[in-house]
């Protein structure tokens, strides 16, 4: 619970953050809301030598309507996502998912960029990002590049963002008026999901699953069934298909498979 020694470098802008990352390389770690990084540092599971604090880079905190897409700055807090009128209208699934993250303290510190970059299969927002088929903007020494949400999560707690890069923006196609559903199964109010799912309807429906593999994942077979107009029972029956959920003290693999089906059905029916 006592972190190892580190240097603290606050960055005032994206450019300053990038240059600090260039300077310190893999000794450095970005600090956004700190709600995933600091617990790891306190347990000494992460021991960065330099912490580059981007928490006060205000121009990366916004939610903007850009016509076909909604653009969200990486440093936007869960609470802002949850309460945004723009998101409630055009991407209600994401606003709703954000309201299920942790407790109010967590939501007032944690950022959408931090949640995505942490790459935790147990987190809620990655599932919503997968379901809405968002695109992610990554800034690096040689400028910006975009990655689809499908390509973003590469391994357990690993993402496409390289050591010298920064996630800056999330672009989500509008899903105004489409059906959507979100289900989270946990024991205590502020817990991570044992299993969760984010379902986005529309022409190209998406189903993002929480805690059903080593990365945030889509339930591709269930999505296909949904696209081809199958009943909610038929879609739900495929919710775990092709996925390899973990076994841990909160639930074993077969229970997670069962939960996935129940939750997808509920997300579709409610």
């Amino acid at each position: 619970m006592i972190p190892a020694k580190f240097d603290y470098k606050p960055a005032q802008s994206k450019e300053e953050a990038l240059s600090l990352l260039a300077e310190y390389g893999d000794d450095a770690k970005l600090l956004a809301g700190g709600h995933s990084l600091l617990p790891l540092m306190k347990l000494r599971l992460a021991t960065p030598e330099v912490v580059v604090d981007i928490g006060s880079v205000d121009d990366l905190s916004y939610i903007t309507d850009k016509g076909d897409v909604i653009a969200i700055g990486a440093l936007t807090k869960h609470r802002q996502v949850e309460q945004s009128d723009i998101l409630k209208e055009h991407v209600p699934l994401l606003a709703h998912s954000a309201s299920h993250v942790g407790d109010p303290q967590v939501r007032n510190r944690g950022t959408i960029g931090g949640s995505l970059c942490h790459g935790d299969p147990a987190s809620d927002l990655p599932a919503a990002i997968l379901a809405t088929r968002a695109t992610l903007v990554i800034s690096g020494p040689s400028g910006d590049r975009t990655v689809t949400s499908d390509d973003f999560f590469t391994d357990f707690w690993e993402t496409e963002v390289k050591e010298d890069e920064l996630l800056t923006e999330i672009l989500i196609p509008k899903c105004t008026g489409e059906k959507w559903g979100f289900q989270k199964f946990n024991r205590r109010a502020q817990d991570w999901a044992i299993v969760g799912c984010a379902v986005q309807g529309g022409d190209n429906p998406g189903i993002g699953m929480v805690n059903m593999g080593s990365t945030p994942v889509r339930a591709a077979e269930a999505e296909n069934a949904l696209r081809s107009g199958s009943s909610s029972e038929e879609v739900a029956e495929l919710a775990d298909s092709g996925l390899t959920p973990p076994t841990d003290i909160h639930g074993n693999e077969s229970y997670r498979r069962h939960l996935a089906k129940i939750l997808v059905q509920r997300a579709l029916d409610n």
Partner: protein
Amino acid sequence: MSIVGAKVIRKEDPNLLTGRGQFVDDIQPIGTTHMAFVRSTEAHALIRNIDVTAALECEGVVGVWTAADLNLPALPGVPGLERPALATGKVRFVGEAIAVVVAESKYAAADGTELVIVDYETLEAVTSIDEATADNAPLLYEELGSNTVAEVTTADDHQAIFDGAPHTETIKLVNNRCTAAPIETNACLADYGPAGLTVWASFQAPHHLRNRISAWLGIPQDQCRVITPDVGGGFGQKINFTPEFFVAPVLSKILNRPVKYSQTRSEAMTSMYHGRAQEQEVDIAFDDNGKILALRVFASQDMGGYADGTGMGMPVLTTAMSAGCYVIPNVSIAWRNVLTNTTPIAAYRGAGRPEATYLIERAMDHISYKLDMDPTEVRRQNYIPKDSFPYQTHSELAVYDSGNFEGALDELLNIMDYEGLKEEQNANRTNPEKPLLGIGFSSWLEIAGFGPPGSLEGFGHLGSWESVQIRIQPDGSAIIYTGASPHGQGTVTTFAQIASEYLGIDFDKISVRHGDTATIPQGIGTMGSRQVAVGGEGVKNASLKIVENAKSIAAHKLEANPEDIEVTDGNLFVKGTPSKSLSWAEVATFSFQRLELPEDMDPGSLDTTILQEVPNFSFPSGAYACVIEIDKQTGDARIRDMYLVDDCGTVINPLLAEGQVHGGVAQGIAQALFEEFTYDENGQPTTATFIDYLMPGAPDLPSYKSGRINTPNPNNSLGAKGIGESGSVGTPPAVINAVVDAVRHLGVTHIDMPATPQKIWEVLQGGSK
């Protein structure tokens, strides 16, 4: 109106709520150093070598010590089984202290511990009672030849009664291992200077700790002072001895500087004593009416890696209280204490009685399953009638003082709509939209008010009384000094209420001080729901004695008979002549002035010290019901309502009594549905964080509906029994009985604690039992 029994708000709160509380970690004398332990990462291993070289070079580190460097005696404990202050040659659980680092900051201390290299020779670990008692099991102490360190076999197993009984049933139960996890972890600050040793400690019994530290260090008690400032919860975890309280003074002496230890949560999870961890085999014999004919209990207590004195006593309390609220003509008990490579076990709120209540209340429901009888009816068949007290149980320890068990059940059924719930339960079973509904009962009784001579000495305490000293100040206000050492219970308020009632001094002019061996008379401490029933009785008796003397002073000044003096509203006056009156302030001032006193009275003689004894334990009881809803698809169980009828005799402060019940019930629900401390096969803890150890919070718990009956305690004049542990004793069986009730129609008769959604789902699938 009487102030005893009034809903007075806590005197303690303004200080705590405005951040003016003072906990050990807030205290920072000049020159304070910080201590941290290198803790075992192995459950069972020989220590081949400890290399501290790198740690010594770490910036900010003042020193590093191992057992070999300090050559310390073992900690006070069970004779022959004392645990070392620092591991000597062998480690017996993950989290055991191996070496100690002192540094200029807590950060440097933590860095230092990371640099100590321990070379282990891993041994096979035993992590359960079954493994530890198997043939050829690896032994924690080779020299003992067994992991079983105490065993009591039954004198008479009543087999003939079982053979002839219309019905018998065997039940196997596991009382899951829990940790209390108080919000303030263990902490201490030792300052050993030329004038002696002062230890600030987060502890429930300061004198107990002082006596042991002074004996262990070989310094006179007058030069050894223990202060327990504000203490952030204890629940029994802070009456036991862990290395920090002894090692910090030693290092303070060596360094001639204050040494502070403030434990991290990660350490607390594995190094503070755990609770429960008891397995039981229960046989019952009963007739067609549900009347129980015989009960046989065999309790196996997991002791963890070291045998603690209170831990050893857990199955004693369980087997003493196994018959619960019932007339059971034949009871046979047996138990054993078994070492395993896990965190040591000691008292945790309820300490042995939740285990007893769980077994007998599960047994009652098993009778109802077998006979298809209503569970409340089974209980009515067996209750001890309310006119049969004192009631001698099968156990010498337990002579029930008083009780009205059927009355509590009647009141419980009064505050809930049992018939309506049963109808709803039936309707819900066939309605796919509705959750399964379960209704579970628990008629419980516990042994509290640890106070009769001998009751705490067995656990290593100096006595079983509690000390109370009341000093009347010259302005008529009063200060109570007590050996009780409250840490959240609100005793400052209840003691002031009792004193105000019997002294006739305004509640706002009474302070209560505790937790300092230099200023408080020798005391025992706060545990076993004893404060009001023992210490509170002392407050009353001391007050009465003071008032008697105050009346003599008033009578002397008012030229009246002491018998004619009455005390009301802060005044002492002559009965029938209110104009002849003195204020308490005047009498208090006179009490210090030779020339104003009657001849036979010395100045200052109002002050009174009492070591209050009581002739028997107290036996709080009650009836609880849990109404639970289970999601048919996921197995998720959520409590809809808890109905709670408590009988703790006289209630001093209903707000505080209710608060104690709420907290206890929360911990009972936690044990039944959420919490279990577990290990993998190598003895590595698998629930050592709050992500995995599911301590519930307020949003996860229901609101409670309370009722109350009052059967006074005949063994103290207040009539009070104690309420600190009731909730955690009575709740787990009510919850599990409700869970099983919800799935009874599927033929289910048992689900182990904690009843997690996965376990319930498996049962719904027909997957087990």
